[in-house]
């Protein structure tokens, strides 16, 4: 098989792991492709490199292709499709040391688990409007923060100011007093802890147990004109995700990711997210989180159209777009059909449905699969018990 090189954009984060592992551990080579991984300095540059054809595919925040489908952000008219979900969760919410001190004084235990208690303690401790830094206007970080605090009755947008701060500059923004709190992907939250300017409050998974975080995005026209190549890419990345979720793969992955050409950061910081053992404060207090970040287990890679619809609905509610139409347009870009087609030739089974009620699983459950058997799905509850039924067709 002749090896085809695909140019892939990525942003230096732990959740770029499936792409890096696919290339480094030979899963790409097995499919006759080689991934030329290009590090992007910002999400907007990764998005533009994709739409202008400088890369074939990109590591992308799940809400970005949805926002583009709604005509928000980026070059107007460009369509970007999601062919796989690369990761669920893997983000952290943190606060500056001043807020942390106030919450400690009020007796908050920092259990790093209960989003209701954490949110109430935070709202009590805040004086004036709360300024939260997120990496991008269209990001699961922004969605989780809005969802969490609004659900607890914190008035948004009057008292909640969500600002864009690039992950690598989060620690600087906290130090400069530009923001009071943040929601960011690892290892940048741990980096804030190391810098002594902030403390971690919650893993993103405590707000939504199965939040689609990063996706593999391609141009819509590329997906249609290169079904064979995109299939190879989907399979290579799917196998990399499986390897990552098998015991033992993650320590090695942390070493790979730490290299100068990828994250260029101490592997110990990456290991925290990979193992789910996070250091939450400069005093070295640690917390263990089950499923801090997921790459495979529970059909992680499957782009549920209902996930896109949820994101589309949230963005529409905030930007004043018509909600039903936004949900429909959003669901179109999560290509569960292409994902299914690509994995048909592998041993991997997928759910029979492409839409589901998001937030309905309080525990792991087995559901009917497309091959007539069943397939495991992981708990996907929202912290407030809400369910999202994507009734838009």
């Amino acid at each position, binding site marked *: 098989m002749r090896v085809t090189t695909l140019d892939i954009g990525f942003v230096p984060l732990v959740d770029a792991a499936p792409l890096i592992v696919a290339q480094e551990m030979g899963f790409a080579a097995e499919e006759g492709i080689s991934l030329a991984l290009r590090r992007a*300095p*910002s999400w907007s540059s990764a998005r533009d490199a994709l739409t*202008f054809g400088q890369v074939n595919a990109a590591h992308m925040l799940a809400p970005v292709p949805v926002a583009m489908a709604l005509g928000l952000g980026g070059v107007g008219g460009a369509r970007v499709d999601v062919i796989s979900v690369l990761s669920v969760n893997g983000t952290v919410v943190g606060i500056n040391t001043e807020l942390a001190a106030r919450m400690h004084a009020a007796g908050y235990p920092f259990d790093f688990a209960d989003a209701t208690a954490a949110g109430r303690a935070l709202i009590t401790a805040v004086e004036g409007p709360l300024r939260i830094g997120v990496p991008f206007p269209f990001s699961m970080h922004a969605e989780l923060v809005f969802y969490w605090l609004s659900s607890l009755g914190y008035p948004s947008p009057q008292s909640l100011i969500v600002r*864009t701060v*690039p992950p*690598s500059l989060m620690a600087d923004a906290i130090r*400069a007093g530009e923001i009071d709190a943040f929601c960011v992907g690892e290892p940048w939250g741990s980096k804030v802890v190391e810098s002594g300017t902030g403390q971690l409050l919650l893993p993103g998974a405590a707000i939504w147990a199965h939040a689609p975080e990063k996706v593999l995005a391609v141009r819509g026209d590329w997906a249609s004109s290169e079904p064979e190549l995109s299939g190879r890419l989907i399979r290579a990345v799917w196998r990399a995700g499986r390897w990552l979720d098998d015991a033992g793969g993650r320590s090695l992955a942390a070493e790979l990711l730490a290299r100068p050409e990828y994250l260029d950061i101490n592997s110990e910081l990456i290991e925290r997210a990979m193992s789910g053992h996070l250091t939450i404060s400069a005093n070295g207090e640690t917390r263990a989180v089950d499923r801090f970040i997921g790459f495979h287990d529970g059909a992680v890679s499957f782009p549920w159209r209902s996930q896109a619809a949820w994101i589309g609905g949230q963005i529409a509610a905030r930007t004043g777009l018509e909600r039903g139409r936004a949900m429909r347009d959003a669901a179109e870009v999560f290509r569960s059909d292409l994902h299914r087609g690509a994995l048909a030739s592998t041993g991997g089974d997928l759910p029979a449905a492409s839409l589901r009620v998001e937030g309905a699983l309080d525990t792991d459950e087995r559901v009917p699969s497309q091959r007539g058997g069943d397939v495991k799905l992981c708990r996907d509850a929202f912290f407030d018990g809400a369910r999202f039924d994507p009734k838009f067709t």
Partner: protein
Amino acid sequence: MDYEIHVVAERSSLARQIVQVKPDLVLVDVADPSRDIIEELTLASGPLERPVALFVDRSDAGLSTAAIEAGLSAYVVDGLTASRVRPVLDAAIARFHLMQRMRAELDETKRALEDRKVIDRAKGLLMRVRGITEDEAYALLRKTAMDQNKRLADVAGALVTAAKLLG
């Protein structure tokens, strides 16, 4: 057409400075992560009252691609027309190419200087330990590098590190 140019160096206050300066056109180095901060301003809810948009010249797709390849993004405030943006962007692209060349040359010079330093130290070590002349020490390093198919500076670096470890 006259231009007034503001350079924003302090990234953490970028959004605030843009609001204060009220620019017509914002040029951003694509390599800088703070570009995403400006992206926020392109949304209606941003702190700028005037609309900001990523500049894409539809009459000439080549210009936008050239800008991106040069490592530059332009954000236009309040729908500045392509004909007004074009000369600014052309000049900026040329300038970015020049800067890139200068950066590459500077990196190369820095590296050459580092190489020189480590080779000199390795030569000094060999002269002292083996009692040979400077020319002989250099010849020995060169031959070793050729035999091992390595860069001279890498062989010299390995020697200096080993000498440090051995005390």
